[in-house]
């Protein structure tokens, strides 16, 4: 918006129709426990990396379902895979497995 001296605002809305949920379908195949997350936040509360960073596993879990790939790709690098989340998860989500699969999925999709 050069000529008008202000910028178009980025829409915060999750545009569900246009998001790519391939990651979710991939995870449903290889690690179906991903579907069990109820976003209770126990993982985030205990997260070793989350103590020092913005890593928020329950948000990543939700973003997987919403197809917010850019957010996931940005945040997932902060995970140290320590596995505390797995110990506290009330729904027995195989969190480390999910994260590893996300990493390898993103790697193969070049994000």
């Amino acid at each position, binding site marked *: 918006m050069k000529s008008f001296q202000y910028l178009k605002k980025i829409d*915060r*809305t*999750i*545009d*569900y*129709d246009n998001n790519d949920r391939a990651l979710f379908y991939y995870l*449903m195949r290889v690690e*179906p*426990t991903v*579907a*069990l997350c*109820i*976003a209770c936040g126990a993982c985030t509360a205990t997260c070793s990396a989350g103590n020092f960073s913005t890593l928020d596993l*329950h*948000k990543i879990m*939700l*973003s997987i*379902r*919403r197809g*917010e790939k850019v957010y996931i790709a940005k945040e997932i690098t902060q995970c140290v895979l320590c596995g505390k989340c797995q110990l506290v998860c009330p*729904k027995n989500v195989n969190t480390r497995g999910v994260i590893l699969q996300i990493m390898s999925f993103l790697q193969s999709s070049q994000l």
Partner: protein
Amino acid sequence: MKTDVVVIGGGIAGLEASTALHNLGHHVILIEKKDILGGHVALWDKLFPNNKNASSIIHYLKDHLPQNLTILLSTEITNISKRNNSFFIETNFHQTIETKSVLVATGYDVFNAHLKEEYGYGIYDNVITSAELEEMFKNNKPILTKQGKEPSRIGFVHCVGSRDRKINNLYCSKVCCVTAVKQAIEIRQKLPFSETYCFYMDLRMYGLNFEELYNESQEKYGVTFIRGRLSEASETIDGKIIIKVEDTLLGRPLKMTMDMLVLMVGMVPSAGTSFLINKLDLLSNNGHFIASSDEHLLANYTNVNGVFVAGTASSPKSIDDTFADARSAVLAIHQYLTSQKM
């Protein structure tokens, strides 16, 4: 006509109570305004959480009805009054029934979804209520949009008409959460290539095996639950519904196009319940359901001596709760009638 007890309402509470009261030796008249018995349950297909046929419940109740029980179908009460210790009930057939006691089992109506006008019920083609969806299941109708296509994305909006100050219904209707889970699973079973979404404020999976059903819906059927109250729905040029919610767990607004939107309508007191509240000067809870004399100890008693209440006339209840409530009402009436005889 003279009788010991008039049971008003031929739903499951009324049927169960009439049978039990009759078996205890009281003379019972059961009044039902429709021409069939069974109330709402007769309109349903499968029950949560175990997928049992709703009709099996009605069959059981009908099979156990005493043969000489007086049942007045298609009968509406035009007036009811209390004189001395008796109630006089006038019907649309100009009968007058004199009774020692009355059991109000008038149940509920489903919430009028027109009142949540921002959801577009009655305006958008593909917004339906959960009751209508259940009817489609019951009658084995194909699940199709108004445009005649199989919907590929279906949303369930929880708490329509419940827990909403805007329409002055503060209470939780109790059964809609698990009904949504049940119906979402059924949709996935009938339309395996569809996606189903539930938009909820809280998920109240209070009953036995409800949580299991919820887990199954997620893991096996891939139902997606989005925590956020639907704020507005609008129709697209091709008759789909665009919904706007906040994904409160992500803290971001979310926009999604749906082929069909199902409103999980809650329970409101039925017209009959309101009528009786007026005519008998019954106390009510915030102008809604009939108030019990004491919700713990005297759940089936009302402020009027000789008037008892059972089932969803006093609060939203599941089928199990309704049966328990009806049975406890039977004991209350039995006690009342026996003490009167003495």
